[in-house]
């Protein structure tokens, strides 16, 4: 007779399935165990809000100066996610941030009009400057930025645009329009778009010996200047206004509206405005508070 392995082999199948089910459960609990300490490290019972802001503001170093003061006063940690203005507003629109701190008034007003914030508030301003090679091949040095752009276009000297829907990019396009020039009419090598932040744009401009529009804050904190310098400043059309937008809880109920509003209120009030004014690089203030009282 054959050995009686039949029943055993059948039981084997069932046993194996139980073993695998057990293993799967163990796996799942290991996964949870692994993920939770990492998540807990983040949450840790801290009170925080997520603020979408721009790379230029972050890179100027303002937040490292400003936010600790706010945290001291309120106990709220402000987590800054620094992306381009376009992306920052998109983040706020999706409800991934509790508030936005950007510098594109037109886009901010649209945000409010679409109901994603109840209002926008002025916080501070600085100015844009036209940076270019020290030898100034297009001869633009002076106080008139519109004329400078026309000279650059005429001379065919290279110009670098951020091309990333940032506040700076929006300002640049407005200036080209005022100069009566269509930037799309200009092309490489004369007009290049890098689709990048202010810092990388300055890096590229210094390599290419190109003209570039920058905000004063980033320029002052920038360390790789090579042969670049400020060529045009002080023109009133170079005025760069920063605003704060608190995301409307009616659109995104989960946002931390009270804490976000606390920050907005603080930054337009006396202590916040004073903190902004006291931020200097090389003895020079980068931003000028101008919140309406």
């Amino acid at each position: 007779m054959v050995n009686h392995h039949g029943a055993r082999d059948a039981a084997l199948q069932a046993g194996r399935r139980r073993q695998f089910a057990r293993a799967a459960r163990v796996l799942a609990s290991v996964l949870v165990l692994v993920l939770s300490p990492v998540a807990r490290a983040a949450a840790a019972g801290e009170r925080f809000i997520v603020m979408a802001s721009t790379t230029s503001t972050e890179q100027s170093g303002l937040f490292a100066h400003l936010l600790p003061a706010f945290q001291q006063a309120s106990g709220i940690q402000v987590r800054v996610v620094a992306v381009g203005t376009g992306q920052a507003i998109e983040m706020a629109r999706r409800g991934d941030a509790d508030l936005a701190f950007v510098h594109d008034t037109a886009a901010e007003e649209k945000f409010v009009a679409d109901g994603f914030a109840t209002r926008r508030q002025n916080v501070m301003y600085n100015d844009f400057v036209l940076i270019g090679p020290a030898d100034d091949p297009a001869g633009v040095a002076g106080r008139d930025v519109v004329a400078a752009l026309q000279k650059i276009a005429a001379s065919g000297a290279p110009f670098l645009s951020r091309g990333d829907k940032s506040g700076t990019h929006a300002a640049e396009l407005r200036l080209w329009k005022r100069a009566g020039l269509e930037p799309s009419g200009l092309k490489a090598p004369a007009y290049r778009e890098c689709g990048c932040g202010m810092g990388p744009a300055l890096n590229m401009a210094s390599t290419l010996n190109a003209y570039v529009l920058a905000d004063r804050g980033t320029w002052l904190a920038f360390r790789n200047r090579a042969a670049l310098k400020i060529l045009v400043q002080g023109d009133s059309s170079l005025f760069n206004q920063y605003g704060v937008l608190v995301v409307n809880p009616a659109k995104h109920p989960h946002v931390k509206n009270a804490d976000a509003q606390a920050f907005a209120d603080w930054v337009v009030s006396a202590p916040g405005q004073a903190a902004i004014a006291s931020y200097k690089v090389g003895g020079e203030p980068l931003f000028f508070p101008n919140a309406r009282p």
Partner: protein
Amino acid sequence: MQTVFESFELALRLLAAGDPQLLQIVVLSLKVSASACLIGALVGLLLGAWLAVARFAGQQALVWALNTLLALPSVVVGLLVYLLLSRAGPLGSWGLLFTPSAMVLAQSVLVIPLIAALTRRLVLTAWREAADPLRSLGAGPLTAAILLLVHERRALLTVVLTAFGRAIAEVGAVMMVGGNVLGVTRVMTTAIALETSKGDLALALALGLVLLAVVGCINAALSLLQAPHSAERAALV
């Protein structure tokens, strides 16, 4: 070149000074990538081994998909995970965006295809020899896959280390889903990206050297752990 020399000096000073902020960033990088590799190993090793061993309809398609995913850029993975975790997305209510957990998730997605594809190659080679013997002993596909994983454990360690290298060196995914928030989701690579964009190239390069030094120490420690065992095996032959 000046920048490069500067950065070596700066890297040494950074390592010697033991700046707490730098330490926090290094530790977070290690935690995130190690967690991602652990998850990646659990999923990828099994997936790869099973794909090598099992026979079913659509298997070739799955292998093709796996090999294609190897070319997935980290920034695309970051974007996909961002859309998944965004408030407007399906998992938005979990509130994981801009936390280290999101970074672990994104890096796991990145390394799973890598681990699975490499494991599949390894196990397939072993399977050519092992298929008949294991089947003759009564092992089904899943059991055979696990036995071969145990059988090839030394080579698979290298696979996991490769995945760890890929994870800790990537910047696109963690930048998108982490947001590079100081003290919370800033890791070595995003810090390097930030310093580069600020124009502080020497510091950026120095941080890069610190990253290499840290990973180098880990690899050294691992080979020291394996050394006595290798010597023993060499003596027996």
